[in-house]
């Protein structure tokens, strides 16, 4: 059969496979054809190996698997894949071929998922637009003159353009949720510690989690079922966690949402604000109650984040030294080799963050910057704890704007960072959040962020499914319907 992969959910793809309406090989070929047709313009994949993908699909067809076996997937190129190049979007890892797969990739393999390839990202996941990739920017399928968000912009673009049914991303300050919002998708940032980070090229270990980027809330639940497992290779990945249930849309009687009104005054674009207010009305129409909550320290999240994340990054990225893997620039002595290698291998944003982090951790500044930021982190956590004493979940726009034009923020790092004001406090607190499509503003998607207490993924997915059903959002960008 001819398979139309545009807008095809992973849940539906699995049903086609289990109903023997198509084979995994046919499905993979349909996606590879789609990639060949549209990804030249979008540049959302960094690595595609059709022969490898088709061989993996044939293996699934032969093994007669169940569940999700044979369904394709795309992986952010921050996730190590054994035998398949992994660049983290950086020149310093050009040509690097991992000898082990990330735990989440291994679990995808165990579930029978078939990798279509590795997706573009801001270098080492440092960015909010995918423009900081050393391999060039990815374009937004809703408007190719605009960014897809970031850092998981490639993963967002492949799903929105029908080049994969779903993808994994990582989120350190909003890197799953913001690109999901910019591309009209569902993105889940799980509770810190619920998904293994083993094999994720490390940026900021105390903040980042792997999570699903999907067309529907149910697909997010299905993929979270695959990846939320204990691992003995990540000391922070530990239970207890609830098994993830498949959510059904329904009424929200008895649910109380907190709305941080003061935070909303901080420069939310008019159309984003209007769509957000409509979702508040939807919540009430479904029987939920809205109350104001205060998160007085959340506004300091940006400052705290831009100490803590670069500090951790400066330590993590010290491993790129031209000795064991990646680029080496030759020099007469080892120190000159380190400096030349790192100068040539890292891009401008990565250097900025290494410099901020090294400065903040250096003698005389450690307490004033790093420890102070960690104190703010405590206060942000306490804000959320206090709010969750009153409410079941908190609603905010995922990002204060829609997707911005390529190049618009590249010369102003602080403006780029400010796009994450509503997402990064959540990483500092280590709690989960779900971004669901929230309608269009001037033809571009907006996102509704639902934030919950630790290990509330099932609640978030159920709430997300309720909003999803009310919005009845079509996740296929108009330009993508006729593109193939």
């Amino acid at each position, binding site marked *: 059969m001819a398979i139309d992969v545009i807008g095809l959910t992973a849940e539906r793809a699995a049903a086609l496979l289990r109903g023997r309406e198509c084979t995994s090989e046919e499905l993979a070929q349909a996606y590879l054809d789609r990639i060949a047709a549209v990804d030249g313009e979008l540049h959302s994949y960094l690595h595609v190996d059709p022969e490898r993908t088709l061989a993996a699909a044939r293996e699934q067809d032969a093994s007669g698997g169940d569940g999700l076996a044979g369904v394709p997937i795309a992986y952010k190129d921050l996730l190590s894949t054994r035998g398949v190049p992994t660049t983290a979007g950086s020149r310093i890892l050009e040509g690097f071929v991992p000898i082990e797969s990330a735990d989440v990739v291994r679990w995808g393999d165990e579930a029978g998922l078939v990798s279509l390839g590795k997706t573009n990202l801001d270098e080492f996941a440092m960015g909010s637009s995918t423009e900081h990739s050393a391999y060039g920017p990815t374009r937004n399928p809703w408007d190719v003159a605009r960014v897809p968000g970031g850092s998981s912009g490639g993963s967002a673009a492949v799903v929105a353009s029908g080049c994969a049914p779903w993808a994994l991303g990582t989120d350190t300050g909003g890197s799953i949720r913001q690109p999901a919002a910019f591309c009209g998708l569902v993105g889940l940032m799980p509770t810190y510690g619920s998904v293994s980070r083993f094999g994720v090229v490390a940026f900021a270990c105390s903040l980042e989690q792997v999570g699903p980027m999907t067309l529907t809330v149910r697909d997010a639940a299905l993929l979270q079922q695959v990846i939320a497992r204990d691992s003995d290779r990540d000391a922070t*990945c530990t239970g207890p966690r609830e098994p993830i249930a498949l959510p059904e849309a329904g009424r929200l009687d008895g649910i109380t949402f907190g709305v941080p009104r003061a935070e909303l005054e901080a420069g939310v674009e008019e159309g984003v604000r209007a769509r957000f207010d409509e979702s508040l009305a939807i919540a009430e129409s479904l029987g939920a109650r809205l109350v104001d909550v205060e998160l007085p320290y959340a506004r300091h999240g940006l400052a705290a984040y831009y100490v803590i994340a670069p500090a951790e990054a400066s330590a993590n990225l010290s491993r790129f030294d031209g000795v064991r893997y990646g*680029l080496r620039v030759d020099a007469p*002595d080892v120190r000159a*080799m380190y400096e030349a290698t790192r100068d040539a291998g890292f891009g401008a944003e990565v*250097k900025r963050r*290494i410099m901020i982090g090294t400065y903040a951790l250096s003698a005389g500044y450690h307490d004033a910057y790093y420890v102070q930021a960690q104190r*703010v982190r405590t206060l942000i956590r306490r804000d959320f704890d206090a709010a969750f004493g009153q409410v079941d979940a908190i609603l905010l726009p995922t990002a204060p704007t829609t997707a911005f034009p390529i190049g618009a923020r590249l010369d102003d790092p602080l403006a780029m960072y400010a796009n994450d004001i509503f997402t990064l406090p959540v990483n500092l607190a280590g709690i989960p959040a779900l971004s669901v499509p929230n309608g269009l503003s001037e033809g571009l998607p907006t996102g509704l962020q639902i934030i919950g207490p630790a290990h509330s993924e099932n609640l978030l997915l159920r709430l997300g499914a309720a909003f999803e059903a009310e919005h009845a959002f079509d996740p296929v960008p108009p330009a993508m319907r006729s593109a193939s």
Partner: protein
Amino acid sequence: MADVELTPDEVRHVAALARLGLADEEVERLGRELTSILGHVNTIAQLPIADVPPTKHANPHGDALRPDAARPGAPREEALANAPDPTPEGFRVPPIGA
């Protein structure tokens, strides 16, 4: 803490700590950018929160420790396969302190 303005010498000092060789124009640009970013970061420096305990990580459960048992590591040839300048037994580097 008063507003910081990073001088070129300070930028070079931090770059040396980070083992980043920087061209002169990068030193100038990073000085400007870091001054601006640290200016924003300084908004938290004044908060009177010295008695608040710092949060180092957000995991409420503590570390998960596995049994301290030996298990095989990567085979040598695999571990060396990505090295820019491997020998049959290890990683070759330029002279130290030449």
